[in-house]
């Protein structure tokens, strides 16, 4: 049951070119947890933005959560490491920790690229 929502994303990556689908801005719902404006957080955000622009253009939505401001939110997504990227949508939830400097692994982690 969890395999079916994955299929469109695979198709998207197969073409290696972002298919722009209107109204699907929320197809990729990503959350980046950071703790303050640290260089590592900024790097992570920049890396994420670059990857999304390249592979998920027009289909993604990034929400940055600063745990310094909202520490209670760490509990909901079980955040330990900073920075952590959480893929809320499509299901299932996936997490990528680190500064996202390795694009290959981010793509694998987000299931944009097959393992």
């Amino acid at each position: 049951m969890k395999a079916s929502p994955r299929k469109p994303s695979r198709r998207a990556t197969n073409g290696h070119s972002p298919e722009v689908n209107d109204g699907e801005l929320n197809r990729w719902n990503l959350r980046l947890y950071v703790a303050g404006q640290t260089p590592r957080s900024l790097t992570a955000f920049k890396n994420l933005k670059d990857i999304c622009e390249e592979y998920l253009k027009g289909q993604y939505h990034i929400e940055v959560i600063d745990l310094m401001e909202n520490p209670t939110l760490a509990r909901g997504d079980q955040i330990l490491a900073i920075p952590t990227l959480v893929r809320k949508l499509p299901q299932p939830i996936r997490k990528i920790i680190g500064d996202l400097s390795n694009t290959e692994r981010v793509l694998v982690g987000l299931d944009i690229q097959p393992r």
Partner: protein
Amino acid sequence: MTATSRRPRSKPTALQKEPTGIPGFDEITRGGVPQGRPTLICGTAGAGKTLFAMEFLVRGATQFNEPGVFISFEESDQELATNVASLNFDLNELVAEKKLVLDYVFIERSEIEETGEYDLEGLFLRLDHAINSIGAKRIVLDTLEALFSSLSNEAIIRAELRRLFRWLKEKGVTAVITCERGNGTLTRYGLEEYVADCVILLDNRVQNQISTRRMRIVKYRGTSHGTNEYPFFIDERGFSVLPITSLGLTHRAPTERISSGIQRLDTMLSGEGFYRGSSILVSGTAGTGKSTLAAHFVEAACSRGERALIFAFEESQDQIIRNMRSVGIELEKFVRKDLLKFHNSRPSAFGLEVHLAMIHKVITEFNPHLVVVDPITNFLAVGNDVETKSMLTRLIDFLKVRQITAMFTSLTSATTLIEDSEVGVSSLMDAWLLVKGIESNGERNRGLYILKARGIAHSNQVREFVLTDHGIELIDAYIGSDGVLMGSARSSQLAREKAAEIERRLASAQKERELRRKQELYEAQLIALKNQYESERDAILRDLDEEKKRLELANAQRLEIARLRRADNSRNNDVNIQENGAKKARKGTAR
């Protein structure tokens, strides 16, 4: 605490300790865990790590008004609450009262991908938030090592852990960190390198199918602590650590004496019975009346209005009451008055430590004046000699400090020497009574003697010990030319003696009579002799008298003849004759 205050010259910032509130633990650590520092609890699975940590928090919140945070890496909040609900810890209530925060940190390895640099600031923030939200003074990280299995970059984890412990110290919270025991090491991932202040090892060993939990303080920087392995147990009230000799030999010795309930036995103990607070061992072979002796002691105590507690490992309460009734000891009324309490269990039901802890618990609750353990030898079925002795040592220490008089019965086998068969505890006892079955002349009798009674002048005699329908009676055993006699031999000997005495009495009466007769005889003879003498004397006197008369008559005749012859000087002729003689004598001298 004492160790630190004893060194006034050292820096004023001596190690402060945080009491855990866990019974016994604060004693062996002399105050608790180091305040504001992390403590590592390691042990194998099921050793009780999580429970220890949880109790540290719960007791902190309830007894010391110190809120705590429980960070669990293994169990969810609700699982935790359910698990400890059986120990009467109501976590949900504590959470509602803002005395406790439960935070379940869960990492699903399969949904995590690592790329590039990261740190564990998220965890720090969560801890920080949890601590600040209730002003926590205590924190538990339950199996922090779960991080190692959730994240793959060990270098980062280690660096972050180092930072975490530093951070916790800076925060000033007292932390307890649990760790799984590794193969040959204290912890699987070497966490003891980071937490170097206090390391406690929990252990659960199974011996003879009975498991015993033990605790050891591996390391405690900056303070003295007990170094032994201390048994502990977990019951419906949580953790209890049992310090083996934490009390030492410093107890006071009361001088008050208490009756044993058997008058003759008191007499054997210089008339006043045992010292209060002493430990008394009653040993003997099967069926010699040890329990009955103990029941007497209990009856005496309860009659004085004291509370008594019987730990029975062989009989049920009803059985004891019934059996003692048959010898005239009525215990049930004391049970009803709440002066007497029984605690019956099979020795094999638990390990020694649990037994000891239960005894501790029951004693603490009931607060008796007298404790009877019947019998101690049954513990040997559970543990070996050394363990049993160590357990009894702790029990006796515990009782002595509370000045509770204790009577222990000990079953000795008929074939072994009594000195060998006392679980090696006789040296711990203040008084030792031996009840011995003595078999002779086809019957079995009981003899009682006092092997020792510290500080009491006691009889060295064997007394015959008889169970009657009104309790125990001690009778002087017959000690005579035929040795020590008991039972029917004693009574027949006594009968024989009685007969002999009657005979002797008859014989002496006979002699007296004879004497009297002899006396009468002699007296009669004496009278006869006297009579004879008197009659003889009278005859002689009569003769003398007659002789005299005859002489006078002769004189008179002579004078008559002279007168008839008209002789001169006739008047006093015979006088003249006498005078002439006298004159002649005078003339002779004058010449």
